[in-house]
């Protein structure tokens, strides 16, 4: 248990640092703005208490916010993702014992389940984030384009990272 907490702490720092120092400065094609930090929320073990997920989500969003210089945006959206995560866990981990220490990843779920799981949540996250950032329905299609491009890039990034860091663990 202690080991899990320590590992989670490391994940938190590394993912936050990666997001803050590298991805935040990245603007691919002018539309793509990958937000890897929600991977941290999505891959928390399934037996993490719900309240802890909420607090961790908020903390992650808050840290990203501080460095992005716009208070509250990431925190609000990340907290929402942390709030709806248990529903998605229930749906996508159907038939598995989510009370044990399961980590949502390709190794545990298989790519065919993992991909829709992260795609849906990342889309919800990006949709809320960009809508909140624009805060109006003008330029709706421009915003939609940003949402779709960023979702694709974030999902790709999460899959690459997942392969890099968790593939070996299984074998």
């Amino acid at each position, binding site marked *: 248990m202690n080991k899990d907490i320590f590992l989670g702490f490391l994940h938190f720092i590394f993912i936050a640092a990666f997001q803050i120092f590298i991805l935040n400065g990245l603007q691919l094609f002018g539309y793509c703005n990958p937000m890897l930090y929600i991977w941290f929320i999505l891959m928390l073990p399934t037996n993490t208490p*719900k*309240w802890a997920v*909420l*607090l961790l989500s*908020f903390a992650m*969003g*808050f840290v990203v*916010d501080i460095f992005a210089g*716009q*208070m*509250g*945006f990431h*925190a*609000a959206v990340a*907290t*929402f993702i*942390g*709030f709806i995560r248990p529903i998605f866990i229930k749906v996508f981990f159907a038939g598995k014992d989510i009370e044990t220490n399961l980590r949502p990843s390709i190794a545990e779920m298989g790519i065919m389940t993992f991909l829709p799981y992260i795609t849906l949540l990342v889309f919800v996250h990006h949709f809320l984030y960009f809508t*909140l950032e624009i*805060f109006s329905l003008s330029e709706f299609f421009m915003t939609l384009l940003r949402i779709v491009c960023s979702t694709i890039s974030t999902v790709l990034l999460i899959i690459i990272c997942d392969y890099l860091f968790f593939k070996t663990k299984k074998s």
Partner: protein
Amino acid sequence: MHNLIRFLKRYFYIFLFLFIEGYAIYLMSQNSYYQGSAINSFANELAGNINTYTYNVSHYFTLASSNDALVKENAILRAKIENSYVKYENKTFQYNDTIYKQQFEYIDAKVIQKTINKRNNYFMLNKGRIHGVTNNMAVICPNGIVGVVVNVSNNFSLVMSVLHQDSKPNIKDLRTKISGTLVWDGGNYSIGKLVDIPSSIPLKIGDSIVTSGFSQDFPEGIMVGKIKSFKKDKGTGFYVVDVKFSTDYNKLEYVYVVKNFFKEEQKQLTKDIKNE
């Protein structure tokens, strides 16, 4: 108490979420100008709407007393305004010249009452006998012909408008100089009819129609309107012409009463012939 704790435990997760989310939104509103003002204005609008509803209900209770106060204030104000006084001024414009003898004099007046939608329409003016207005004087306005005075009291006068079945001023077509009579057959107050124009005269749509000066009332060349359409009446050999009045009689406000200095002289001449 036990139930309360169970309730809190059960919904602790949702309360925690709402609390954190609320805090995040609070941060957002505090730190970003646009989102903050949008959130604030939404809150203000909500509060304003609720306040409006409550006001709409509550102000019924004070309606009677505020009405009384308003009526009193109205009465005081009404006694003060200019309209409750009749102006005793007699401004006429006259000049003497040895070569040109002035034939017409104009008395300015204001329309204080009017109808336009009856078959026979009248205007009431705020000038009467003591200002020099007498019966059968012509009335014009800056845009054109208005009518003829038919009744005069000391301070007011009644004008038979051209929108009247007895109003038959003599007019002419400015281009061809052919003269006719203007009548109004009711209906549209912006369209008059010309009769007595022989169909041998080539008319054009858009021709200006002015007063001919043949009647003793109207000076020559007062604008009446423009020809809107015309057709030949085969039975009589005359045109039936629709004229669009140059004056919007619905908006008529300031007019001039025309006094003809030679009128009695002209009348006397015709009377002499009739008597013979």
